[in-house]
């Protein structure tokens, strides 16, 4: 019998600590498979964030580092500039990248640093208990917006991909989702392309992945994926936002 599908060797055997139905696991797998397929495992360095994915260094079978909250693009810049032949990626959530790390990501992007950023957007702070994030949707209930996010009081959610796509630095920016198998396959293509962009020295690449947080959204995993499709995709349209040939 031929193997149709099995867990990639780029993921360690350590069981993921994520909640049941959390799509972080899917995104980890897509990143790991892309690195594996491109054959760059030995020269890849990943930068883990602060947030639910803080233990990502335990799960990826390549060199990993941990950065202070939001500072992964700054650490990645250092890694890449010292060793330009290494493949450097950061893996960050929306609380990490769009809030405390907004300066780091914006300036890494506008400098056109030749790194790859995997940006996991689940519209909430997961690890700290479901507080409102910069990406929380208008009307969305969180522990710090119990009556729903009021844009008049709290502002509107940030569309990070569109915002960074206005800069001249980035080479490839796309937004993808992982709420069903078709979109998972498309997400994989985009993540792989982001790494290829870096390997071909074209410059900064960022993939925003819409992700579910069943625990803090207060839903079953199935309900969470349906909510993502119905509510997040209209607010955060999928597709390639910038591509430099």
């Amino acid at each position: 019998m031929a193997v149709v599908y099995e867990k990639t060797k780029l993921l360690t055997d350590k069981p993921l600590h994520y909640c049941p139905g959390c799509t972080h696991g899917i995104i980890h797998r897509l990143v790991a498979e892309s690195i594996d397929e491109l054959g760059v495992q030995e020269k890849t360095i990943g930068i883990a964030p602060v947030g639910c994915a803080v233990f990502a260094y335990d799960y990826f079978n390549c060199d990993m580092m941990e950065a202070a909250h939001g500072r992964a693009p700054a650490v990645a810049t250092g890694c890449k500039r010292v060793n330009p032949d290494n493949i450097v990626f950061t893996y960050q959530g929306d609380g990490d990248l769009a809030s405390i790390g907004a300066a780091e990501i914006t300036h890494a992007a506008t400098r056109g640093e030749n790194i790859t950023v995997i940006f996991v957007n689940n519209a909430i702070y997961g690890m700290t208990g479901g507080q409102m994030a910069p990406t929380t949707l208008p009307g969305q209930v969180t522990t710090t917006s119990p009556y729903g996010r009021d844009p008049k009081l709290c502002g509107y959610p940030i569309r990070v991909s569109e915002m960074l796509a206005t800069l001249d630095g980035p080479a490839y920016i796309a937004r993808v989702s992982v709420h069903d198998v078709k979109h998972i396959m498309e997400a994989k293509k985009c993540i792989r392309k982001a790494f290829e962009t870096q390997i071909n020295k074209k410059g900064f690449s960022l993939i925003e992945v819409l992700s579910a947080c069943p625990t803090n959204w207060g839903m079953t995993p199935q309900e969470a994926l349906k909510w993502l499709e119905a509510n997040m995709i209209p607010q955060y349209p999928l597709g390639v936002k910038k591509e430099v040939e």
Partner: protein
Amino acid sequence: MAKLTIDREACKGCGLCAEVCPKHLLALSREINAKGYHPIGIEDQESCIGCAFCARMCPDAVIKVEK
């Protein structure tokens, strides 16, 4: 016929694989694993077509598919 190998101890019983199975072959088991979850199981292995949708959906990569 395709063959599924499920790492039942690593499964967290989220059931996302069961949602995407085109043949509706997957269901949570009655027994619980060491983590306290009902792991996913397949009863009618003969009917599996080996599309690997379940494995691509699984957040914990517990499913291996052979054909």
